[in-house]
């Protein structure tokens, strides 16, 4: 369709030129030029196939240019010959309005060849432009997919340490976003990669400042926020004194996972997961709290997460650390107490 419109424009140009340069009357010029130009449209399709066969790169530029020029000239010459016959034909119809002028106007051939060749070359150029655009879009999609594949591979190695469902859900979300919001998908990919890389690195370190631990847990929650949208709100308040306490890395991870899975996920309107830490004498008190649905059914936790946290506390601090759960129908709080540690 675009093609035909473009060539109709060329037709108008030929008509105008025929009138101006060759003295043909307007009506006759239009009757001459338009059908002739529409015939050129399929003829220039050869340019389309050429552009497919000859990719345009800096190296091939000269060759492509040469080929295009010769193809243009040849096609234009044939077209000019057709034009000549058509000119004669119109003259011979005997209808006065269609009489174009002299039998063999000298300027007709150059006119048609020039316009035809230019039209051909322009049409080829447009094909190249369209192809480049298509290729750029396809490249972007391909880059995104390979990024996802790379992350997937990285993640497979980490499976033992992080809840597999979290990975699975995150990948699903990314997969869902790829077609709809590629920028969002890429951003989520990066955040997921960062979180997993950080937890992998920090997991090997031993102990980290509580402030770093809370930052890590917030990274996790930010990723979950893509799935839950405004249903998952996050609040944290860690005092400077509390933030300096040294804790095992990923200590709070299971608590936060539970808060999302058993708390927020069961609420229609969602809610806020809050993490607070305050210094209290020689200890630091950490509270992870979330709302929950009083009538929540199914998928009750196994208590495994809490168990893991308890064991890690014991291994790291012996009797100097403790954990308790304060829960009612509407909310769930886990209170963890750890030693504040020596002043640095």
């Amino acid at each position, binding site marked *: 369709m675009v093609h035909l419109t473009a060539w109709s424009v060329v037709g108008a140009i030929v008509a105008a030129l025929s009138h101006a340069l060759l003295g043909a009357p307007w009506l006759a010029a239009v009757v001459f030029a338009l059908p002739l130009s529409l015939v050129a449209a399929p003829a220039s399709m050869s340019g389309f196939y050429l552009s497919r066969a000859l990719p345009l790169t800096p190296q091939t530029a000269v060759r492509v240019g040469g080929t295009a020029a010769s193809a243009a000239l040849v096609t234009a010459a044939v077209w000019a010959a057709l034009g000549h016959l058509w000119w004669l034909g119109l003259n011979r119809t005997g209808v006065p309005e269609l009489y174009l002028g002299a039998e063999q106007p000298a300027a007709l051939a150059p006119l048609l060849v020039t316009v035809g060749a230019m039209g051909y070359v322009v049409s080829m150029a447009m094909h190249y432009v369209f192809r480049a655009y298509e290729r750029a879009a396809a490249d972007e999609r391909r880059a995104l997919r390979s990024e996802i594949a790379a992350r997937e591979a990285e993640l497979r190695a980490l499976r033992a340490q992080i809840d597999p469902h979290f990975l699975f859900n995150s990948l699903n979300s990314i997969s869902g976003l790829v*077609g*709809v919001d590629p920028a969002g998908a890429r951003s989520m990919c990066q955040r997921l990669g960062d979180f997993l890389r950080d937890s992998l690195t920090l997991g090997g370190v031993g102990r980290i400042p509580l402030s770093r631990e809370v930052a890590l847990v917030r990274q996790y929650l930010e990723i979950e926020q893509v799935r839950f949208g405004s249903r998952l709100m996050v609040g944290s308040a860690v005092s400077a004194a509390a933030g300096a306490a040294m804790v095992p890395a990923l200590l709070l991870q299971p608590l936060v996972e539970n808060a999302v899975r058993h708390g927020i996920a069961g609420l*229609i309107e969602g809610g806020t997961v809050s993490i607070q830490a305050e210094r209290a004498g020689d200890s630091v008190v950490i509270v992870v709290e979330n709302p929950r649905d009083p009538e929540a*059914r199914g998928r009750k936790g196994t208590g495994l997460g809490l168990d893991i946290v308890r064991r890690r506390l014991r291994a790291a601090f012996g009797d100097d650390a403790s954990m308790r759960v304060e829960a009612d129908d509407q909310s769930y709080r886990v209170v963890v107490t750890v030693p504040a540690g020596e002043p640095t």
Partner: protein
Amino acid sequence: MNSDVLRVVIVDDEEPARLAVRHDLEAIGGVTVVAECANGFEAVKAVSEQTVDLLLLDVQMPKLDGFDVLELIGKDVPVVFITAYDEFALRAFEVHAVDYLLKPFARERLEAALMRARARREQPRPDPSAVRATARPAAGPLDRLVIRDGPHVHVVPVGKIDYIEAQDDYVSVHTAGKSLLKEQTLADLERQLDAGRFVRVHRSYILNIERLARVELYAKDSRIAILHDGRKVPISRAGYQRLQELL
């Protein structure tokens, strides 16, 4: 196979998932998304308020899961489950779902599901009570009833049920001062409720034991149960035997 435009409702609590499905549907064509719902309550409302040809339904959702939704509206609308977990496939089969798609799925898979949905429209519907009966969870007695009231859904924990009265194909669930009509048979409910807490005291009545204040002899061989709030429920002979076994 017809080629009418399918009127589709997407139900999933996760927005990225809803967006992805909508995006795929737009690419496939031949469908109009008439509603996007983030939970089962919205889904019931949507189905009540307009003509819906197909439900694309997630399973894991807050408060009402996909099977609850199916129980409430499954006889009206064909359902395709869309979920990240494969463990529900067997149940989905039992409730005559049209299809079961595992997330993430390829567009072609969704397209195939849509074609199945179209083909299903040509066939007679499965018996509605069969659909509802098998939507029950396999494990354990019921802990709550979901009852549809036009566009609204009542979620009634079993502890709040006073008694249930049969009314032909329906039952009237008496709870917290009101009564709700549910399309189910008394026998069906009897099977699913905890027999230690709910007794079929009469051909037409199931009673929550906790509500029972005392039993009075009405006439020879005829007894009535007096509830704590003073209401009365008739007890048949067989019903009385069952009651005695329990108490």
